[in-house]
């Protein structure tokens, strides 16, 4: 396996947390809800996944626990914004602050511990394809899951009635209510799904990538996932591409350091954040386009007045 292959394979691994988190947020935002608490939900997933895996010895339990923890954290957000009609921006921020605190609290007993990394599961035949095979088909199960979920969500949004209802709620909640759809319930489901995905993304960090628990280990990835959602124009496949792009930037930074180029590591660490800003700026420049793509009800509270 040559260096290029290793780098590209590494990009996929580095990007997978972002894929999960951004995919979940795409679904949440498509229903018209802006949940800025991705960072908080991710870190909750990270700590829950790590702790459960370590205590139970079961990856499956850890991953499931991480998804549930993310969904649970998201449900707190949902409860506040959907039933108590709190401001979505402020509540999302609160979720992030709360999540970071709770995760640090739970994680206290786990720092310094480590789990064996999730085993790699090469896909028979496909992994034999020259060059491409090792890049795409020699990964742990969660990488495959992330891609399957992107496909699944794309089909869900474009091919199913439930997906249509979700988009309708995000486009015009008053009309959806008037026709008889339960706006709040649809949104709660979308919020919980978004939380579960963010939780998976966090778990990927703590039980695959590192694999250990470090306080604040998400390091802004939740926020980058939010930027990827804007970049993706709220489409799952483009969110996957966006995540791989950002993952690539993170990895390049590591490789430059590895090449022994004389530059302070902090400058390289700034790269992902600076790239996020740059991409966000370029994407948002065309106001009309941004307006057409964004779900029309994004961030607006719904109150059934009729």
């Amino acid at each position: 396996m040559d260096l290029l292959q290793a780098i590209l394979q590494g990009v996929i691994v580095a990007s997978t947390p972002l894929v999960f988190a951004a995919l979940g947020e795409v679904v949440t935002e498509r229903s018209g809800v802006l949940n800025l608490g991705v960072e908080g939900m991710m870190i909750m997933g990270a700590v829950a996944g790590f702790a459960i895996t370590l205590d139970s010895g079961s990856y499956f339990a850890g991953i499931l626990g991480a998804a549930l923890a993310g969904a649970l954290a998201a449900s707190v957000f949902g409860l506040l914004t959907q039933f108590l009609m709190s401001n979505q921006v402020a509540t999302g921020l609160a979720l992030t602050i709360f999540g970071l605190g709770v995760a640090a609290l739970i994680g206290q007993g786990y720092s310094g511990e480590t789990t064996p990394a999730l085993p790699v599961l090469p896909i028979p035949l496909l992994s034999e394809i020259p060059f491409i095979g090792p890049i795409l088909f020699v990964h742990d199960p969660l990488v495959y899951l992330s891609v399957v979920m992107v496909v699944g969500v794309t089909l869900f949004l474009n091919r199913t009635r439930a997906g249509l209802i979700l988009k309708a709620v995000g486009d015009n909640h008053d009309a959806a209510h008037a026709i008889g759809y339960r706006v709040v319930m649809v949104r709660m489901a979308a919020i919980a799904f978004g939380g579960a995905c963010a939780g998976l993304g966090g778990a990927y960090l703590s039980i695959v990538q590192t694999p250990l628990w470090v306080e604040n280990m998400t390091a802004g990835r939740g926020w980058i996932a939010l930027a990827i959602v804007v970049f993706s124009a709220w489409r799952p496949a483009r969110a996957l591409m966006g995540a791989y792009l950002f993952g690539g930037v993170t990895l390049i930074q590591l490789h430059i350091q590895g090449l022994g180029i004389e530059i302070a590591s902090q400058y390289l660490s700034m790269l992902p954040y600076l790239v996020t800003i740059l991409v966000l700026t370029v994407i948002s420049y065309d106001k009309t386009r941004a307006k057409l793509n964004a779900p029309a009800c994004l961030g607006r509270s719904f109150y059934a007045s009729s």
Partner: protein
Amino acid sequence: MTAPRLELTGVTKRFPGVIANDDVAFSIAPGEMHALLGENGAGKSTLVKMIYGVMRPDAGAMRLDGEVYTPNRPFDARTRGVGMVFQHFSLFEALTVGENVALGMNAADVGRDLNDQIVKVSDAYGLSLDPARTVGSLSVGERQRVEIVRCLLQNPRLLIMDEPTSVLTPQEVDDLFKTLRALIADGCSILYISHKLEEIRAHCDTATVLRGGKVVGHCDPSKATARSLAEMMVGMELALPKKSAIDFGAARLTVNNLSLPADDPFGVSLHDISFTVRAGEILGIAGVAGNGQGELLDALSGERTTQNDAILLDQEPVGSVGPTDRRGLAFCAAPEERLGHGAAPDMSLWENTMLSARSSQGMVHGGMLNLSAAKAFAAKIISAFDVRTSGADKHARTLSGGNLQKFIIGREILQAPRVLAILQPTWGVDAAAAASIHRAIQELASNGAAVLLISQDLDELTAVSTTFAVIAGGRLSAPQPTDSITVEEIGILMGGTQQHTSAGTTS
């Protein structure tokens, strides 16, 4: 005798502090076009929402074809064959016609060949529609067709139409009634809600009149006069505003070849708009909603600036002057949306005076606010325009639509403008408030101001304006004296450029 299609007895609905429907009873025969008539706030919408299952009555009973009918949600209503076309369309702009139709149907009724069915049904009733188009790119009339087709695909026995014509051109109204007649011929009943007396007299078989939530009468509308129906609705004898013949003075507002690109993907661009309004003149601009009215008002209020010489105030160019300085020149405007545009909902009335009257009334000195000047001005508006509120400290949102509108119009008029531009001043306002707003506008004009009145309400325009023009697709027809124009001409002007109305594009 067969059972009535729909029969209501003793239907009552209470809201905190108000009884929206009080012991309402009437029945609709199969194949009947039944009008439900009443002013804004009479309880029509509440009543039909109960029939469609959006709300539940507190008391009373409904029967559909003789059987007990208690819809808990719209799903139940649709299952029983009751369809509804909403006044404010319940459509999704980002989705296609086909998807919109599918969303409005019960899942079990949506077949694989839905798009073929849409084409078939829409052709059968003369409603041409392309299922693949995005709703955001459709004109208002086309959007209504989507709503109707959505109902028709479920073979309704009762179709509820809530104010269906308020957004249509006269020609589109004719087409709509052709469709409705065809439905009636197929045995469908129609509950037709409106406050437009002429079309009810022309098309409906029976009418029920609501006032203050109660049924105040039933009649055969073809045998009643518009005046008698109106008096039933309002509950008093009507005094229509009178136009006094006046000589117009010099040109106060001149607009020359005003063009303005849309700033919103679903907006309308203005093209080469030119007109003049003289002192004492009230220029009424008619048009179907979404044809550039809002954009024209934005250009006149200064919210969007234009080339400087496109707009002249007393021959001085003001096109590039912003809203604050324009008001300083006594050029005022009042937008359509009261809450959130003309006034900030969660601010007190006196704070709201500072939105537009702060420079003319000396409320700001070197950036510092003079709160007592604002409070005094608010009090002056409240008393001069009979705004019903417990005080200037009340938040704008606590006022009823009519009272807030009186406050906003009063705020502009009491600044003694040389030119006043207003959009839809009586939309959703009760008749008494509307009459007083009309009087105030006419009085302002008779004192030498030039007034531009943009409205969708033809009755309002013919009653108040002295000169008349029509806006369609962002273009304005040549103004002409109101008393020389006929409804047919207006209709042709309004519909004439319909192809321009679908200016929005989608990805």
